[in-house]
């Protein structure tokens, strides 16, 4: 392997590059330039020049890239029962770094077909039926997708018994990929192979469709959606390598203008005795995206979810001023806070986005009285023992008070049954390297882990040894 690696993150507004010396396991340079949507290679070239690499490194570097430009990876997920294979399919697509435009259950209707045409996804993930289970539904849905006027890549990850038959429903103009079932049995989730298949399609097809291939002469490998790279980085940080211990269970939060992403790394088994698990098991590396919780483009739906009164109380604004401010922000997503009051208002928005997004991500307890006494039921992951909460993304990294926002993740006295981290320490991805390290993890996990641990420890926001 080469000694120098350049890691590229082509975002929707900025192209960020990070130079890494693998022998010293450290970041040597970082640079960024505005993303150039017509031909991303121009912005990439400018960012690379900004690195000012010595000529020795210039010649023998390896360049790896991830991208969330051109709307990211847009997918629809299709399954049979909403709480079973549809949910598993959605989780597989999210874990692959996709924006899930819509999740469908049962047989696709004529209206669903029209809606999918309208949504125009980059990839469809088609699941349904456990292995040896229901086959009618996935065959029906394959026929509906096959009749779409514009061919779309389809990843088939449903009932294994009919996978070949499902693939055979599609004309040659469609690319189909068969992966193992996202839910081979009731109660068993298997999303990794489908995630990998989605990443393959992204590399083979989507980067061409999105004009990213123009940058490929500058890049040596690994094109993955940026959120997938972040999730990969989190997984490495949590699990460690054979020679270097990881950080254990983590939560990674990314507040954006349009969405709030939450990644959790951890099994999420009950932390108390006598709790009965309900529902579909969840993956060790779980990602959720809240499309209605953002601090700019989605600020109106955020306010709706939080409540005008709560936001006014916490920000010190009157309800009228809150309304005026959020209408301004939604129309002008580039607006930065100027006055101290506006800074506090933005921080309150970020805090609330994190509070709600983490609340939806974590599992919850419910109580059930039985003739044998009180029984606790757990739906989803128990993340109460997670000790590390990490913030990433522009809103948090550029904030004067990221800790204030990140504390939205912790245990909430008003919602005691939400299984949130109880006593976490907070860290900031201050060098903005998580996506880059997720890329590097594929090639050199030891270096990626060492660099991440160093960088995050530099940006510990509370009790570093906690």
């Amino acid at each position, binding site marked *: 392997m080469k000694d120098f690696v350049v890691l590229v993150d082509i975002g929707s507004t900025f192209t960020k590059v990070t130079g890494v010396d693998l022998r010293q396991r450290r970041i040597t340079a970082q640079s960024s330039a505005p993303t150039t949507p017509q031909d991303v290679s121009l912005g990439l070239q400018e960012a690379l020049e900004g690195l000012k690499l010595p000529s020795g490194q210039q010649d023998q570097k390896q360049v790896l890239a991830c991208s969330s430009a051109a709307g990211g990876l847009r997918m629809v997920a299709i399954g*049979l*029962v909403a*709480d079973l294979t549809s949910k598993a399919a959605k989780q597989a697509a999210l874990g692959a770094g996709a924006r899930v435009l819509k999740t469908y259950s049962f047989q696709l209707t004529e209206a669903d077909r029209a809606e999918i045409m309208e949504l125009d996804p980059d990839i469809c993930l088609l699941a*349904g039926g*456990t292995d*040896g289970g229901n086959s009618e539904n996935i065959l029906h849905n394959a026929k509906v997708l096959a009749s779409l006027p514009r061919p779309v890549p389809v990843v088939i990850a449903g009932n294994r018994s009919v996978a070949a038959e499902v693939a055979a429903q599609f004309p040659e103009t469609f690319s189909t990929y068969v992966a193992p079932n996202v839910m081979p049995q*009731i109660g068993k989730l298997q999303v990794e192979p489908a995630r990998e298949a989605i990443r393959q399609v992204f590399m083979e097809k989507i980067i061409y469709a999105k004009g990213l291939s123009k940058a490929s002469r500058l890049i040596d490998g690994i094109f993955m959606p940026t959120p997938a790279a972040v999730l990969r980085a989190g997984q490495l940080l949590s699990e460690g390598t054979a020679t270097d211990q990881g950080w254990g269970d983590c939560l990674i939060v990314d507040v954006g203008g349009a969405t709030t992403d939450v990644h959790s790394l951890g099994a999420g088994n009950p932390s108390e005795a006598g709790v*009965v698990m*309900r529902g579909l098991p969840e993956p060790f590396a779980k990602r959720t995206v809240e499309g209605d919780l953002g601090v700019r483009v989605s600020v109106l739906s955020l306010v709706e979810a939080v409540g005008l009164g709560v936001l006014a109380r916490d920000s010190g604004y009157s309800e009228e001023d809150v309304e005026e401010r959020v209408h301004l922000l939604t129309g002008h997503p580039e607006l930065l806070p100027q006055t101290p009051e506006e800074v506090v208002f933005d921080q309150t928005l970020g805090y609330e986005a994190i509070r709600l997004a983490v609340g939806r991500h974590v599992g919850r307890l419910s109580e*059930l009285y039985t003739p044998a006494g009180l029984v606790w039921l757990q739906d989803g992951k128990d993340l109460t023992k997670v000790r590390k909460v990490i913030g990433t993304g522009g809103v948090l990294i550029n904030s004067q008070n990221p800790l204030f926002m990140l504390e939205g993740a912790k245990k909430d006295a008003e919602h005691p049954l939400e299984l949130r981290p109880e006593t976490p320490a907070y860290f900031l991805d201050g060098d903005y390297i998580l996506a880059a390290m997720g890329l590097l993890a594929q090639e050199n996990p030891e270096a990626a882990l060492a660099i991440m641990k160093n960088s995050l420890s530099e940006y510990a926001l509370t009790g570093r040894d906690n």
Partner: protein
Amino acid sequence: MESKTLVLGVIGSDVHAVGNKILEIAFREAGFTVVNLGVLVSQKEFVEAAVETNADAIMVSSLYGHGEIDVRGLREALIEAGIGDILMYVGGYLVVGSQDWADVETKFKQLGFDRVYPPSTLPEDVIPTLKSDLGM
């Protein structure tokens, strides 16, 4: 021969786990594919598991006396889900107190079960009937 799939579980707020495990093992050894949902299973979970697995039969246990309330509407829910003609068995301590078994059996058959079994029924008493009902 293709294996038949059974969805098995203890319905309602009932936490009796031991018999459920014994049934799972017995049915599996008899050659069935067993989807065991365990204890505290809701009607919704029975229906959804049967849909996804294309199950051939649903085996409901209830051992705490409230079974009649818990199973009411299950057959109707299966009809709604498009699998209304699936074979359905129930067994256990289905009612409170010592009621006449014939009455209990009639009651549960009216609730949509094909076979109804009293307490202390052994798996080997059920398996031959189940195989015959499934045309095995």
